[in-house]
């Protein structure tokens, strides 16, 4: 650890000082209820027989989780989806350092040991690729054709980003936090995965720099030894192999911040090819409300009688307030929500169904605390982001 002049100020005061200096409390503070240094142990109950992932691309690895493996509240590390822009960096053993620089009072360079000495937080957070569902949009969209499983819920442990920023002292003009990892592009002309988040999101106490995933040191393929975790936002913000944090007045430059991960303010109707080239593009940030059926599986053959329909549901900022199930287009029935209810994480749900012989369609729709619920059709957009249409699976009952 280099310098830290703020150690004379009590921690809690420092954090509130910074927040006040930055213009008041950020979203999420009022709802934030999950804290504690200890691992919570939910991952120990995760028991899935099928350990295979669906491979979308082998090198660099892009792989999603089969839905029937997503039923437990916590997704095991080896089953957690994998999205890579570039191959994982082969950095030889050396003290990993995290630099914090730019519009700060004191640039700092931290080793992993320095982070370990800071206050530790643990929270369960859903990460979902912004393009989860891209493969379901028609007309087809270029890019990794994710179906539904580029999502998972893990328990992350590390330090709050705001605590790190305080060690460097954020200057008045800073508005954005630039993030750079150790994964380098394959060619000098290929843009680096250089990203940024607004300062208000960076100082949200839910935003953390994680060193552990489900109680284990963060696996290299998931960004180890250090990655950002930005709850409620699409996972492209949760930058892996984090090495540089730079405070700046503007968003990060470059393709992955200024061109990629953008969506039109006015979404085109499904199936539309026409997109207003003058239409304003906004960064994809918060996730939208969504649910999955994890049991039974698509096309599964069941025996008649009681069938437990199960799944998960999550949203961006806010909470899941309800999940409804409709069999063969009949009236929506409320499912039972269970498992912990933590903002940024997901809920598990279940519904007992008395299945009669024949072909059936099970449809599921989640609703969140903003009153948003899944639409009949997800609005088409040219990069295939934020698919969240009402979930539907077909089963055969004998």
């Amino acid at each position, binding site marked *: 650890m280099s310098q830290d002049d703020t150690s004379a100020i009590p921690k809690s005061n420092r954090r509130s000082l910074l927040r006040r200096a930055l213009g008041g409390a950020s979203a999420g503070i009022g709802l934030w209820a999950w804290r504690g240094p200890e691992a919570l142990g939910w991952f120990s109950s995760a028991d899935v027989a099928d350990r295979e992932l669906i491979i979308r691309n082998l090198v660099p690895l892009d792989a999603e989780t089969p839905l029937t493996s997503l039923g437990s509240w916590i997704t095991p590390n080896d089953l957690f989806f994998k999205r890579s822009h570039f191959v994982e960096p*082969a*950095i030889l053993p*050396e003290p990993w350092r995290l630099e914090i620089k730019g519009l700060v009072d004191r640039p700092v360079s931290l080793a992993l040991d320095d982070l370990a000495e800071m206050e530790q937080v643990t929270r369960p957070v859903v990460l979902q690729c912004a393009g989860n569902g891209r493969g379901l949009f028609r*007309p087809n969209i*270029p890019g990794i054709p994710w179906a539904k499983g580029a999502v998972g819920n893990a328990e992350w442990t590390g330090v709050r980003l705001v605590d790190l920023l305080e060690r460097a002292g954020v200057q008045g003009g800073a508005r954005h936090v630039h993030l750079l990892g150790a994964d*380098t592009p394959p*060619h*000098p002309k290929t843009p680096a995965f250089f990203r940024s988040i607004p300062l208000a999101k960076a100082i949200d106490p839910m935003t953390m720099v994680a060193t552990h995933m489900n109680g284990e040191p963060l696996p290299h*393929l998931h960004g180890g030894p250090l990655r950002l975790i930005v709850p409620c936002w699409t996972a492209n913000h949760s930058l892996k192999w984090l090495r540089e944090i730079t405070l700046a007045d503007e968003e990060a430059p470059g393709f992955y911040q200024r061109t990629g991960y953008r969506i039109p303010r006015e979404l085109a109707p499904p199936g539309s090819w026409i997109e207003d080239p003058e239409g304003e593009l906004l960064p994809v940030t918060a996730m939208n409300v969504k649910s999955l059926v994890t049991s039974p599986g698509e096309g599964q053959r069941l025996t008649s009688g009681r069938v437990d329909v199960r799944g998960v549901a999550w949203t961006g900022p806010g909470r899941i307030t309800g999940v409804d199930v409709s069999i063969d287009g009949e009236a929506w029935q409320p499912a039972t929500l269970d498992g912990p209810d933590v903002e940024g994480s997901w809920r598990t749900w279940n519904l007992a169904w008395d299945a009669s012989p024949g072909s059936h369609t099970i449809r599921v729709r989640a609703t969140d605390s903003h009153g948003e619920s899944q639409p009949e059709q997800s609005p088409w957009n040219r990069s295939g982001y934020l698919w969240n249409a009402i979930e539907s699976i077909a089963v055969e009952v004998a």
Partner: protein
Amino acid sequence: MLTRSALLAVCLLIALLAGSSTRWPSGRILAEATPQQDDAGAEEEAFERELGRRTLEGNCLMCHSIEMIETQRLTPEQWAAEVEKMVGWGAPVPPEETDLLVAYLAASYATESAEPVFGRQTLDDARSSTRPAPDPDALPEGAADRGAAVFTEHCATCHGPDGLGGDLGVSLIARPVLLRPADYASILRKGRHRMPGFQIVLSDQQVADTLAWLQAQSR
């Protein structure tokens, strides 16, 4: 450059003709009373497809594996835009081969092509080609300072003076292959994609020295 292209064309033609004799038995071609021109047209088409496939193999797979491409189902316009984007990002597709590449992609992975099939693997298996694989017997101990000179002389033309990539070669900094000495040695000896083999140019010691230098640069 002209000579090289001509040589390449001749090689491709030979390969194609060798392949075509098995795919289209000459008996069938002779027996069918189709006009000569159509056969020539079909062969020309197959030849161009083969050229397109080779352009893909030589210029796309150095950064990502084939699944990224063959699971897309796009229109010719979308393929053209993707190729343009990738060329802008450094894919060394020769300008005269761009149209062939786009035509190959558009014909092979069209919107109306059959649904792509995706493999399933455990994370462990999926990672088998990039996971660190220490192998003390693969190469002698290398010296980074000697490696710098070898790299400058033999590698930097394509991979850039700093190893971060150049017009023809990808970045070698922090690549997983640096932690897989047996793979590293094999690629240097035999070549890969557009890279020639250096078996008769570099000794094992020199290969080890370049590896040591690249590892030292990857911090």
